[in-house]
């Protein structure tokens, strides 16, 4: 039976696993540094940038995967899903930002750190794939 996992998918998963591991290690390392070493000056910026590099890598890996994937249907599902995820993130973050602007008046909005935006995109992307795939069944 033909395996439905393509070679490009397998490469994508391995690469993403490495990049995600690097991201978690960077987050752990940077948090440890700020708690125990209290960096100052330029080191603050460099350390804050460290977890960003694996995020760039994850996005680049996704782009490489889209270029390498030879199954056009899978590619179409992924592109549509990423557009849905981007739309959800833009809509939610804009809505949340507007709420925060009016928070002094309505006093109900919890401040959410911006680094959750990427996590929100990843979760939205995963859910969007389920939604998009259902449309083709």
């Amino acid at each position, binding site marked *: 039976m*033909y395996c439905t996992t*393509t070679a490009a998918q397998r490469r994508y998963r391995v690469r993403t696993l490495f990049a995600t591991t690097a991201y978690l290690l960077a987050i752990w390392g940077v948090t440890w540094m700020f708690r125990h070493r209290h960096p100052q000056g330029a080191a603050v910026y460099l350390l804050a940038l460290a977890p960003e590099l694996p995020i760039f890598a994850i996005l680049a890996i996704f782009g490489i995967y889209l270029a390498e994937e*030879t199954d*056009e*249907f899978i590619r*179409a599902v992924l592109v549509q899903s990423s557009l849905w995820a981007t739309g959800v993130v833009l809509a939610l973050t804009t809505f949340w930002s507007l709420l925060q602007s009016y928070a002094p008046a309505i006093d109900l909005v919890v401040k959410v750190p911006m680094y959750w935006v990427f996590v929100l995109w990843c979760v939205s992307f995963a859910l969007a794939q389920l939604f998009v795939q259902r449309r*083709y*069944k």
Partner: protein
Amino acid sequence: MKNRLRVLRAERNWSQADLAEHLEVSRQSVNAIETGKFDPSLPLAFRLARLFDMTIEQIFVDDGSG
């Protein structure tokens, strides 16, 4: 786009997975094309035509929806 893939598959006693293997695509791709929910690219349509030894027009029906 409507097509005759299900009939052509049945004539050869192929499952969707068999056709997917011949085309080197996923079974989901075959299912989406077969049910008319996903239109294949021109290169994939030509691959289908070569596989069944037919023309593209003999496999796909232009219903004017594209």
